């Protein structure tokens, strides 16, 4: 985490996102990485408002499956957004579904997530939900 008042560069945001995604795959989420009023909209877990709700939603996702792997294909960042292109693999009831996930994140200058949008293409999502 950057010091208070320190504006993160895009490469720093990318590195933070990479570590957060890796940890998130294991169900580990650092609450300090989110602003108090953070909002999340996710294909798997719906909408969550506020830091506690977002953290809970992110922790919940891996528990919905026997296996949950998020492998970043690429992570890009500019001053306003971080975008992660993720190869998602989930396994449930012995069936594995692979999908491409796009994660779009708004961050503040301290690198905290203020808004997170995690989208899986709906027809792949149906396969996951109908597993």
């Amino acid at each position, binding site marked *: 985490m950057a010091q208070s008042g320190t504006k993160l560069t895009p490469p720093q945001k990318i590195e933070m996102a990479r570590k957060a995604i890796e940890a998130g795959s294991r169900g580990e989420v650092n609450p300090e990485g989110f602003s108090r009023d953070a909002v999340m909209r996710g294909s798997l877990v719906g909408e969550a408002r506020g830091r506690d709700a977002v953290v809970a939603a992110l922790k919940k996702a891996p528990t919905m499956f026997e296996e949950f792997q998020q492998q970043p294909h*690429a992570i*890009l*960042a*500019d001053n*306003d*957004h971080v*975008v992660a*292109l993720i190869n998602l693999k989930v396994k449930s009831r012995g069936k594995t579904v692979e999908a*491409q996930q*796009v994660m*779009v994140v708004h961050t503040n200058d301290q690198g905290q997530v203020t808004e997170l*949008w995690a*989208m899986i*293409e*709906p*027809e792949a999502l*149906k396969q996951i939900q109908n597993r």
Partner: protein
Amino acid sequence: MAEAGVKLSLDQKIQKIRDGFEAFKRGDLKAVSELFTDDAVWHGRGSTKFGGDFKGKDALMGNMAQFAQTFQDIRLDIHDILANDKHVVALVNNSVTRNGKTYADQQTFVFHVNDQGRTTETWVASDTEQLKKSLEN
């Protein structure tokens, strides 16, 4: 267009993609076409006629032209465009109208753009369920 052998910067690649969206919005598909390599591939998602792989410039431009003919009042508002060495990603607020009904969506376009600023491969992440409904109605 950059001279042969000149490697475009990330900002220049972003501008190429922005130019492509602007050209599509004004209906200049010839200008859009010039931004793709002859062997470019467009990966559409979902099970509609716009889903699947369109290989070659003619095929992907045909798909794009059909999209433009299928919908009215196509709006593509660029929210942001980001780039790194391998990808250009456009975040787009999109809406289309068909048979009097408007459908809004947030879409992500992922482009591979070569050093000369031409797109070699495109992936589109969008609400394909809504697209399917819009075609059924």
